[in-house]
């Protein structure tokens, strides 16, 4: 079982031994997030990266105690600015969402009320979280729309979400998530539904907002390109566990976990044509929750597995520098990976 170290003094968010479970078809509990611990410092962009089903989105939702039933947080602590999020009253939780922690999703359309104008939503947020009078709130709303570079913000105040393009909706969603003055933004695949030229615009907007507002961002993504582009630190998840924690340069320069190395290698080479060559692919697929191997969850796909990997489950171990990896070979210098 993971120990529960005290949260780092400088941390804005501390997650300790977070475990999330889903009831299976026959009533037994399948663990989908298993003992996840990490910290986010003020102004830091941390990527939670992994493939579908690895538990990254549920981890993001758990920070606001928004895990959708029947999924539930089985155990663990989420401390935001030192306070236990799960112990807050419903009223305090309401204030936390938007006021302390903002949230944006992949498809902003689904999070926006289709019959409310962007302006009316924004004014609502500003009155609720910032206590502004209607008139001030309206002026501040226009400033926010202009801050996220929505063209013609006065006119966009009256726009309904479905009249906007995907890129514009994501800008509006960012304004809504940030207007309440949060210190942390949880952004779950914020650019995945967008075209690549618009993705580049939104990522540079996120970096600008971080700089100006000293905003911390938990960037939930499957895309290593987005990690390279925008994050300071990365947590790689596999089958419900963090398998590697590293600064972004270290993650790409000397990945410590064989899964990270496999993910990085399976991307088509930059600036290179394949000419019919095969890509180095990871074999096999992610184990289903509830059907995980007893030892390391990655062992069946791991090119470097040995006897111990089948018998015991590795925890996060120092892997050189500030990196940690859940691998028995973490402290063995890795073979050249690039």
């Amino acid at each position, binding site marked *: 079982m993971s120990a529960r170290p005290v949260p780092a003094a400088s941390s804005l968010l501390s997650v300790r031994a977070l475990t999330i479970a889903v009831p299976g078809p026959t009533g037994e509990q399948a663990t989908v997030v298993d003992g996840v611990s990490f910290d986010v410092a003020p102004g830091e962009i941390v990527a939670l990266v992994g*493939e*579908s089903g690895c538990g990254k989105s549920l981890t993001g939702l758990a920070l606001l105690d928004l895990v959708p039933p029947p999924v539930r947080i089985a155990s663990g602590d989420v401390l935001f600015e030192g306070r236990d999020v799960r112990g807050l009253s419903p009223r305090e939780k309401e204030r936390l969402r938007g006021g302390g922690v903002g949230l944006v999703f992949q498809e902003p359309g689904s999070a926006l009320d289709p019959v409310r104008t962007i302006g009316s939503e924004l004014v609502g947020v500003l009155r609720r979280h910032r206590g502004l009078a209607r008139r001030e709130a309206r002026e501040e709303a226009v400033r926010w729309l202009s801050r996220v570079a929505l*063209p013609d913000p006065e006119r966009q105040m009256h726009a309904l979400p479905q*009249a906007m*393009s*995907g*890129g*514009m909706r994501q800008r509006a969603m960012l304004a809504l998530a940030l207007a309440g003055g949060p210190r942390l933004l949880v952004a779950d695949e914020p650019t995945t539904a967008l*075209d*690549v*030229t*618009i*993705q*580049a*615009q939104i*990522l*540079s907007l996120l970096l600008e907002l971080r700089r100006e507002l000293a905003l911390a961002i938990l960037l939930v993504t*499957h*895309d*290593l*390109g*987005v*990690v*390279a*582009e925008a994050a300071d630190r990365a947590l790689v998840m596999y089958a419900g566990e963090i398998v590697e924690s590293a600064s*972004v*340069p270290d993650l*790409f*320069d000397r990945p410590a976990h064989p899964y990270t190395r*496999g*993910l990085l290698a*399976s*991307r*088509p*080479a*930059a*600036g*290179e*044509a*394949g000419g*019919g*060559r*095969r*890509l*180095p*692919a*990871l*074999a096999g*697929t*992610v184990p289903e929750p509830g059907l995980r191997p007893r030892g390391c969850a990655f062992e069946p796909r791991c090119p470097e597995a040995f006897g111990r990997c089948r018998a015991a489950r590795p925890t996060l171990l120092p892997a050189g520098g500030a990196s940690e990896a859940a691998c028995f070979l973490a402290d063995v210098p890795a073979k050249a990976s690039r």
Partner: protein
Amino acid sequence: MSAVPNPGREDPLLSVRDLHKAFVRRAGLLSPAVRVAAVNGVAFDLPAAKTLALVGESGSGKSTTARLVLRLLAADRGTVLFGGIDWMGLAPRDLNARRREMGVVFQDPATSLDPRMSVEDIVGEPLVIHRLGSRVERRERVARLLSSVGLPASARSKGPHEFSGGQRQRIAIARALATEPRLVVLDEPVSALDVSVRAQVLNLLLDLQRDTPSRPAYLFIGHDLSVVRWVADRTAVMYLGRIVEEGPTEALFSRPRHPYTALLIASQPRRHPGEERATPRAPGEPPSPAAPPSGCPFHPRCPVARAVCSQEVPALLPDPAGAERSTACHAPLGN
């Protein structure tokens, strides 16, 4: 009339000229109907056993082009020669008989495979429709197909929902190849897949093109430039219903001639955090196909636009330096 992209080469397997398709759309119940030119004079050639990628952002018309070639949609005008046959002119009966020569794989195998059918029936159905082989022969063919896409023989009696996304895409590929087509249209075949599985499926597609006796050509619709660069022999970049640049993939990526191609390449997230790169300055978003700008469709966002660009639509013209490339630009880069 559209330019002929690559004159003087041997007859291509697929030759598309002056293809047009417009849709009539209403923004709301009471809004006036608007004519949207989804595909606007598209022309390209695809040689046998090669891969041509159509790349572009949403609304570029790449998927509509694929559906027109497949005749899942009727074109407003234009010609498609497929193996020398006037494909658009085929009567429905003849078309149905010849459909087996084109296979198709869509983006999302969760919705494109019938959940009530077994894998054996899904993969074998094209053989039944085209009355190919006896029952026993069909069973053997399905077994060979499943093995060629890396699925166990035990898969045949299961339903598609019992498989992961990557395995479902393997089932879709087996079905597309069942009738030994000479052309397979791949519409974002790996976009819904996770990174580690995406590499497996791309490898499978490359292996099958090389090892299948019918050596299928691929028309690969995609938006991920790194994937396209890896798999395609030639690439055509689309913007707002038109091809703006076409050429050998490597030349096009390493020396883009159209400013939009250059923007697409620069907008790719960097592959490594240490990569130094100027942030692309791409003001605005692609305009609505319902209200395209005058002249070159890219001119409102183009960093090098001139006066002529807002007045005249540039034709897709062969590169004066040859090199089998064409660009639709009044002021191509590198001149």
